[in-house]
């Protein structure tokens, strides 16, 4: 089957730097896996509801506010915190 993926792109998304040998190896393994899924995909199975997993509205929660942990408890379980907030390495999804 034709490759349905670009190994360089996948490696980039997974934050992996791969050698040429690894690329060849993983490409062939991924192709095998995709082959299995292609066999599955040939079955005519529209998105359906699994009746065994269906509940009615009685299983919903009422809109009643309950207790909270408090900032002190929340920050205590984090590796690092500051001023009631959880501290993480700088992540920027911003103009920079």
């Amino acid at each position, binding site marked *: 089957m034709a490759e349905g993926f670009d190994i360089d*792109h996948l490696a*980039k*998304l997974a934050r992996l730097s791969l050698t040429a040998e690894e690329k060849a190896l993983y490409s062939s393994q991924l192709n095998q896996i995709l082959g299995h899924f292609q066999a599955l995909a040939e079955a005519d199975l529209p*998105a359906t*509801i*699994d009746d065994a*997993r*269906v*509940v*009615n*509205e009685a*299983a*919903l*929660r*009422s*809109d*009643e*506010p*309950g*207790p*909270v*942990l*408090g*900032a002190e408890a*929340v*920050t205590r379980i984090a590796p690092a915190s*500051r*001023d*009631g*907030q*959880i*501290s*993480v*390495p*700088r*992540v*920027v*999804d*911003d*103009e920079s």
Partner: protein
Amino acid sequence: MSIPPSDWEVVIGLEVHVQLHTRAKVFASSPWGFGKEPNEQVDPVVLGLPGTLPVVNREAVEKSILFGLVVGASVPEHCSWDRKNYFYPDNPKNYQLTQKDFPVVVGGQVEIELPGASRNVMGEHKFIRIHHAHLEEDVGKLSHAGSGSLVDYNRAGVPLLEIVTEPDLRSSAEAEAFLRSLVAMLTQAGVADCDMEKGQLRCDCNVSIRRRGVEKLGTRTETKNLNSISSVRDTVIYETARQIRELEAGRSITQETRGWNAELARGYVLRDKEDAHDYRYFPDPDIPTLKISRETVARLAKLVPENLYDRQRRYVEKLGLPYTAASVLVNDRALAEWFELAVAAHPANPSGIANLVANDLLRDLAASAGTAGAFDESASAPVSLLSCPIKPAQLAGLVKLTDDGVISKQQAKEVFSEMFKSGQDAAVIVDAKGLRQNSDTGELEKIVQEVIADPAVAKSIAEYRAGNEKAINALKGPIMKRTQGKANPVLIDQLLRKFLG
């Protein structure tokens, strides 16, 4: 800001994220609200701690269904939730609970009204189709400080309805009109408050351009996280101009995710398609599929308020209101209902009531709330009627006194101000101020006869008798003068016609 040359057409689709009006979060019982100290509105379910299970909030589901009914969508038999996996610290569980295959709302449409040629002229109406809307959880808030970032999870788990349009919008003005209309519908149905200053409504804006007449859509860009209607409008204008510039320079448009810097009024690239996340969606194993009963749908259908443009058409066509007054009233459901109570108390003159409500009442309410002039800036700024000292029937009483000729329109304004101050009935104020116009027929008959006998008006009388209707007006001035303006104009007219008959 450049306007696209006419041979380019812009195609816009919006994803509008709205925080639903609930007390507790969507899958957890933690309360939520704006302005709390960081991480004070968090419980173990919000954080996805081991051993916790999400349970869906009924109110959030019902508000979503209500939205569907408001836009005429079909409410599916079932809806279910999926995990959208991604790694970012705004997300405590490393996945966001959302709906992918079976959303709670499918289809529907939103009527919009474009600005008219002037304030008192109604603009074009269009329908924008809704693709679907899904109920998901909001994520936490990040702030960046020095070398690190800080995370506040108060917002994580807040019920968020993501409303996705078809690419039906064709200009920045249409995008703006759509959002105003959507906000009015959401707030009038009580689905959401849509307070943009509190981040309760945020948009992702998909923009592409194509040559006019070409059917195939161009490559689109998505500008994320726009938190005001004006940012959406400015993004469309900016992005349209940028894409035209690129294509006319012989370059191509890259499918990319962009951000918007409102301060500098410019967009920037966040990531291109090569960096597109693979969210590895799969059905959430913790939340069973929900069957939505038709009884619930029927019950919620009764809560759907009259559509604002249906209301506007009814006001103009059935009640004879000028467009300007009708368009102001329908933007605010409470105000419109207040107006209708007044009309019920005095059905003879809806326009007279509408003018007082849309002008005098709104002005005085805004002034007393210290927000003068704020009203027409936004469709979502209803002035509080809770503190209104005048009751609808009292306003009707004032209009009736004017219609019966007891006081003049000018005097009505004065009485209105007094009513707003004291909350008294119009009739009480009219009597206390001695404003009642003279309706004593006997005295007035005498004055009318004296005026008719005056040779100075003989010419006018002759003209009137010869068939010139308007000539009668020349006689009214002298009568008014002799009664110091207190005579009832309707009565004067009747008496003149009787004596000249």
